[in-house]
C-alpha cells in the first residue's frame, strides 16, 4: 500500500492540498500518502518539540515588520501549523524574557516550525513522484 501510494504521482491541485494539510497538521501529509511510520514520528516529535518550547517559557513572536528578526521568527513559529493557532487561542506563548529557559524555549519553537517546513517539502517531493 505504501509503495503504491508513494509511487503515484499526484495532480497539481492535490499536491498543494497535501502540502497545506502537511503544514497544518505535522505528519498528516505523510499519513495521507501512506507513510504511516514517518507521519506518526513527525506528528509526535514536532508537536512535542513545540509544546516543550512553550513549557520552557518560549515566545510566539508577533509579525513586527519593523524588527526583521522578530518577523522571521514569527514566520518560523507559524511553520508548525495547527499547534501554533491552538497555542494562540489558549493565550500561551507570551514568553517570559527574564526566565532562564526563555532562549531555549524560543529555539525549540522556532526549530519545530522550520523542521515542519522541511517535512512539507518532503511531502511535495513524494507527491511529485521524486522520492
Amino acid at each position, binding site marked *: 500500500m505504501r509503495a503504491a501510494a508513494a509511487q503515484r504521482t499526484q495532480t497539481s491541485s492535490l499536491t498543494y492540498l497535501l502540502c497545506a494539510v502537511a503544514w497544518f497538521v505535522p505528519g498528516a501529509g505523510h499519513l495521507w500518502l501512506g507513510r504511516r511510520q514517518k507521519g506518526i514520528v513527525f506528528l509526535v516529535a514536532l508537536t512535542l518539540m513545540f509544546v516543550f518550547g512553550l513549557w520552557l517559557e518560549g515566545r510566539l513572536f508577533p509579525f513586527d515588520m519593523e524588527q526583521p528578526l522578530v518577523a522571521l521568527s514569527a514566520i518560523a513559529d507559524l511553520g508548525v501549523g495547527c499547534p501554533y493557532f491552538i497555542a494562540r487561542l489558549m493565550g500561551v506563548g507570551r514568553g517570559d524574557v527574564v526566565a532562564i529557559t526563555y532562549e531555549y524555549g524560543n529555539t525549540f519553537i522556532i526549530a519545530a516550525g522550520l523542521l515542519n517546513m*522541511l517535512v512539507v517539502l518532503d511531502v511535495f517531493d513524494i507527491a511529485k513522484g521524486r522520492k
Partner: protein
Amino acid sequence: MIVFALFVSTVFAVLTRDDPKEQIAFGARLFGGFIGAGVLIGWLLYPLPL
C-alpha cells in the same frame, strides 16, 4: 541540549532515510554528532569571558 538533539536527530533521520534500520543508525550518528559538537564548542568557549 540533549532533548533538542534528540528531537532534531529523530526528525532528520526519519526524513532522510526510508529503512527503519538506516533511520536508527543515522539518527544515532546525528545525535552523537550534536552532543559531541556541543561539548566540544562549549569546551573551546570555556576560557572566554562572558
